[in-house]
């Protein structure tokens, strides 16, 4: 009975995806092909090799998930649930377990339900989005990409050069501004980032901008002073516009391992992160950390970065993501 439910889930998923034949899906699939090949390939391989669902089977499955950078706790949780499910349904055939695995993965994603992947954009007036994260993850690039997205939706966009510390950071944002046709509000290198934000908000107000994208310097989450500085930046925004920042986006590098969880936790504590952008998913890193973060911190992933160009940003869609991981299996349900 449950088996058929599961089939319908994949059928549904497949229908949904084949219907959206737009380039977005293609791009997403392309970007994830590496992930998909290695991950689902391994799962298939595993299933094919085992004739019985036993301890060894689970151990190997555990290893596959760990290799995908899924947090260890999440893996254990998943394996435990799988074991229970297998026992409950009296599953003997590894082939069947494969469906349960997919089911559980989707379930974990859905645990963060209620938080939409959509950005909280104000109907009226200015929307302020603050970008935070550790060094080199892709904050500035993501701002460039999002600036492009909003611009092409016909919105009036401004960018704030809040990284006054790193060499060339202001110029980097300016190049992005030029590229996508958006003005950048800046001060000299070394000036107070909170003051830059103050300026930018005034500029955004007087120019009646729809969106203000605020860049900040990369900082490691264990640098207390730098985290305090970030809190201050956020406070200035809050003070100038009630309800702002409307989104605080934490950018995470998909190649990062277990530390990404601590990053998410610490940045959430300091700035009340409302969403995540998972960058560099076009590499071979599995991005499995998303599971752990959804599961443990309930922060939704809003976008994924799939390259260095301005349109290499896609909205995160849990179903598509799982589809990406299990494409081979979905194809089999034909």
């Amino acid at each position: 009975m449950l088996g058929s439910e599961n089939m319908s889930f994949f059928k549904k998923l497949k229908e949904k995806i084949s219907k959206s034949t737009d380039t977005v899906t293609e791009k997403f699939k392309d970007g994830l092909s590496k992930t998909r090949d290695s991950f689902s390939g391994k799962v298939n391989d595993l299933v094919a090799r085992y004739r019985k669902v036993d301890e060894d089977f689970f151990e190997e499955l555990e290893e596959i998930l760990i290799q995908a950078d899924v947090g260890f706790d999440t893996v254990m949780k998943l394996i435990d649930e799988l074991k229970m499910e297998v026992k409950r349904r009296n599953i003997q055939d590894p082939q069947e377990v494969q469906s349960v695995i997919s089911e559980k993965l989707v379930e974990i994603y859905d645990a963060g339900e209620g938080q939409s992947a959509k950005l909280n954009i104000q109907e009226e007036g200015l929307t302020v989005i603050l970008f935070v994260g550790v060094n080199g993850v892709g904050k500035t690039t993501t701002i460039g990409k999002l600036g492009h997205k909003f611009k092409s939706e016909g919105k009036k966009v401004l960018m704030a050069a809040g990284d006054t510390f790193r060499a060339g950071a202001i110029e980097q944002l300016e190049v992005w501004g030029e590229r996508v046709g958006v003005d950048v509000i800046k001060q000299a290198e070394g000036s107070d980032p909170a003051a830059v934000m103050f300026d930018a908000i005034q500029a955004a107000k007087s120019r009646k901008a729809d969106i203000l994208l605020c860049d900040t310097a990369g900082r490691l989450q264990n640098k207390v002073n730098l985290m305090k500085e970030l809190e201050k930046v956020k406070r200035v925004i809050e003070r100038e516009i009630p309800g702002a920042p409307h989104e605080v986006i934490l950018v995470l590098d998909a190649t990062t391992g277990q530390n990404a969880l601590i990053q998410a936790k610490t940045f959430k504590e300091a700035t009340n992160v409302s969403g995540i952008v998972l960058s560099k998913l076009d590499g071979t890193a599995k991005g499995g950390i998303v599971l752990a973060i959804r599961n443990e911190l309930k922060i939704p992933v809003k976008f994924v970065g799939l390259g260095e160009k301005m349109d290499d940003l896609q909205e995160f869609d849990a179903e598509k993501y799982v589809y990406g991981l299990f494409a081979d299996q979905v194809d089999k349900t034909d």
Partner: protein
Amino acid sequence: MAFEGLADRLQNTIQKIRGKGKVSEADVKEMMREVRLALLEADVNFKVVKDFVKKVSERAVGQEVLQSLTPGQQIIKIVNEELTALMGGEQSIIAASNRPPTVIMMVGLQGAGKTTTTGKLSLLLRKKYNRSPLLVAADIYRPAAIKQLQTLGKQLDMPVFSLGDQVSPVEIAKQAIAKAKEEHHDYVLIDTAGRLHVDETLMDELKDIKELTKPDEIFLVVDAMTGQDAVNVAQSFNEQLGLTGVVLTKLDGDTRGGAALSIRAVTQTPIKFVGLGEKMDALEPFHPERMASRILGMGDVLTLIEKAQANVDEQKAKELEQKMRTATFTLDDFLEQLGQVRNLGPLDELLKMMPGANKIKGLNNLQIDEKQIGHVEAIIRSMTMAEKNNPEILNAKRKNRIAKGSGRSVTEVNRLLKQFEDMKKMMKQMTGMQQKGKKKGGFKFPFKPF
């Protein structure tokens, strides 16, 4: 979410064994499971972990552990030794060509820290080796990459060679070397663009630069926070380019840095330097034994000791150590120590180097917030000598008085006392382990209290 170190992890098993007095193979297996988990949580690649655990098991199942009275420590000792061995010796030497200029190529994934490390290396070459490097801006792709290197060059007063972003990186490298010869620069540091190891076009570009410039060093710059994928990245760059060294950046964070082990294991290439900050002087030689304790979650105590030695009165430190050993450390000593700790610099940096510190929640906050240290000092100062030496005598009435005297709440007084007790317990554990370790044929335990 703070990860447990190996010592903490082994605690349970050790407790069990202690009762039995004898260690079975099953116990060893259980301990190996903990070793495995500790390494996985530290982001060591799972395959590397597998090989490693196998090796350690073989040693452990032998009589060494089974006959030992302190199996937990023996396991930690073996793990630590094997880890350190795997990571190789200290090799922070930089090649010097006998036909200058010596060419160093910096390669790696996007955002790893290549440009920053290029600047840092040039400073090291000038300061420590009295060399005259030329920096080469060969990243024509990333927005303002050239500007970034030029800004660093200006900060360091280091020459930067650039041909803008319309000339191919290969051509830039070629002309840079000619320029270096002409102007008698003995080192040429080529900052290349970040790229994915699976990006064939861009990897070919690196091969072309290599072909043309015949670099003496090719350094792979890797983010210390990298997860399981580190092996793929390192292996691929190594196979395609033949690396001569690795630089591990952002180690000033709180990552365990298991990637170091993975990279070393798959490439057999030495990790030469580590990046410990964004500033240009934050580059240090790689210390395998420190990295080993860090991966095991034992804290980077050696660095802490070095820092402390540079700042703390030697005599006082000795006294303190003695007190810790004999567990006669009082609140008064604590007060004095707080004063010294303040002199050590940013507290958060220090804290993360302390073994077990992440386990003591309250202590965490207490140490990090400078204002709170002031509060703690005020509370201790409001105690009588008898109370400081013997906090057990603190009843409700005394606590009330102390709270009033220091302008803090009774809750805060209680919290401090609790923290102090936790800290003492931690010290006891540490010194206990160390002394037992000493008795057992004189092995040096990976950490030493201060």
